[in-house]
């Protein structure tokens, strides 16, 4: 009898010692391993933006997100639609798929409010990027990564002052886009000269060129052009040259050709909001939250710009722009 009890006790002890189902050093090691990015279950993170097809800017955002995903062992999914309602549907479809995290742009906050609330209710952490700094926390998102367009505009206005420009025109290439309007408004705030807005059709380069030429012909006093995207800026340079105007061109956002143009002085400066960072940080934040409960920014938007690129640092930035990550 006694022997039996001892044997049972021993067997029990043995069984217990074989594996603890929770805690202990092993669990700690596993957690550390996961934090280092080399293990743990593969996460599925989806990004839904308001990008139009083939937009250069969003291409860089995706590249940032993809490299963070590769590092963090994340399966990265991407979808986009410029229409607010359709964007919300895309978010819904990812909620239905039970992804582990969602990255959403709030360019049309009202259209996305309900679906973001649904994601939060379904316990899917949401991070917002690019647009929606004000709504992000209100809607229940963990963090926001983006550039305050008004602050970026103000930086551009100051740079224009430095370049000695007196009368500038701000080229809006997407009618009714709040972010673009905010850039021009911000620039107007700090710019000491006179500034007016001009609408150009962004999807149609010959029309951009002729509209800018027309403006320069109509008002010979214009000595500065502020474009809101790189391709438009390069076209504006052509237009200024063609119309014999001395207007200097500056821009928001970058690409490879633009950096070359800054180097050889055709473009004064670019205000970069570092889209790569927006994609990268958003994925990384969701991963950190899932692994370590971390939240960046303390409830405030995390600014990824403005970073000014001009002649002084264009050489340093060039290789990154070359591979399409700046």
């Amino acid at each position, binding site marked *: 009898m006694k022997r039996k009890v001892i044997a049972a006790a021993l067997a029990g002890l043995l069984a217990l010692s074989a594996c603890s189902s929770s805690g202990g050093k092993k669990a700690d090691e596993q957690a550390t391993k996961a934090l280092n990015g080399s293990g743990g279950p593969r996460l599925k993170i989806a990004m839904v933006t308001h990008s*139009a*097809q*083939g*937009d*250069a800017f969003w*291409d860089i955002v995706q590249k940032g997100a993809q490299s963070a995903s590769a590092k963090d062992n994340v399966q990265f999914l991407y979808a986009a639609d410029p229409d607010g309602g359709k964007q919300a549907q895309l978010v819904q479809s990812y909620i239905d798929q039970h992804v582990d995290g969602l990255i959403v742009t709030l360019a049309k906050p009202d259209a996305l409010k309900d679906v973001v609330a649904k994601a939060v209710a379904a316990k899917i952490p949401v991070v917002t990027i690019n647009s929606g700094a004000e709504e992000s926390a209100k809607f229940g998102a963990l963090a926001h990564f983006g550039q305050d367009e008004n602050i970026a505009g103000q930086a551009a206005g100051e740079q224009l002052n430095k370049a000695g420009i007196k009368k500038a025109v701000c080229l*809006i290439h997407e*009618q009714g886009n709040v972010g673009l309007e905010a850039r021009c408004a911000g620039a107007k705030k700090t710019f000491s000269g006179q500034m007016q*807005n*001009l*609408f150009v*059709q962004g*999807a*149609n*380069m*010959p*029309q951009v*060129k*002729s*509209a800018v*030429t*027309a*403006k320069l*012909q*109509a*008002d010979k006093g214009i000595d500065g052009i502020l474009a809101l995207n790189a*391709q438009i800026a*390069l*076209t504006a340079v*052509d237009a200024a040259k*063609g*119309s014999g105007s001395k207007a200097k061109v500056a821009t928001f956002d970058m*690409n*490879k*050709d633009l950096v*070359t143009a800054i180097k050889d002085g055709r473009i004064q400066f670019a205000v970069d909001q570092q889209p790569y960072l927006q994609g990268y940080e958003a994925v990384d934040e969701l991963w950190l939250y899932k692994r370590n409960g971390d939240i960046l920014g303390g409830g405030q938007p995390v600014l990824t710009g403005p970073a000014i690129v001009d002649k002084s640092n264009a050489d340093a930035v060039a290789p990154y722009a070359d591979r*399409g990550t700046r």
Partner: protein
Amino acid sequence: MTIAPPAADERVAARSSFRKLLGRPEIGALIGAIVLFVFFSLVADAFLRASSFSTVLYSSASMGIMAVSVSLLMIGGEFDLSAGVMVTSSALIASMFSYELTLNVWVGVVVSLVVTLALGFLNGLLYVRTGLPSFIVTLGTFFMLAGLNLGFTKLITHNVATPSIEDMDGFSQARAVFARDFTIGGVQVNISVLWWIVFVAIATWLLLRTRSGNWIFAVGGSAASARAVGVPVTRTKIALFMGVSFTAWFYGMHILFNFKSVQSGEGVGNEFFYIICAVVGGCLLTGGYGSAIGAAIGAFIWGMTSNGIVYAEWNPDWFKFFLGAMLLAATVVNLVVRRRAEAGK
């Protein structure tokens, strides 16, 4: 539809030359263009300068080159919704082919011509073989091309725009052909304006002076009757689609050599502007009626409106409203004039 015996046909009866003029498809557009021209001359000081006129012409040519072939296609009774993105496709093909294989850009230009013509042929063939409305067929190819543009560009360049080909062999000659600026009497004019005029002249000659022109009107008026009297309907329609792809290639080359790099997402939506130019210029949506000169005037109206608003320094927020209102007005004038002319025949 029956074919009237030729002897008793009132359609071939002699008309006074004034009535003949009013009966032309482009007359409404011409009146609209004159009204707009006078209007902008009055409200915008900068509008009447020679340099401004050159800018307006360039803007018009950017629509007009495509509007020429689109108007022929519409007279032939068909639509091509893939025309806008096909321009981008052709520019992308030329740019990526020469860049990736480091060839003289002319090689890319020729490859792009072949591929783009093949795309037009495919549009025509799909239409002829399936018998579906061209609206549906080309709506399909429109989306397919838009997807291919982006997909291939990302696959090949890993970016959404092609790298600049400015420093490659043959670029400057190609630019001289497709996109050079030159000076006439102190005014800078882009060569695309001249090409536009040449294309309009060729298309007008084709429509009014050749047998092919008669075929185009015939297949647009009634394909069945045309076939019955021996018009090669299939061949004519496919040729018209290929005409659109030819100008898409040409205009694509202009974009490539003027702006050096091509954004893969460009061109979407332009197909409607081409159709608008043709319709303002007197083409009927049902086919069988219209003119290439009319489409050119339509493009000119477009150029005057889009730049006139800038010259007049109006609030740009209203741009699309003005554009729409002016296009509508031009079309209504067109309609009224034509009805009067036809009533008095």
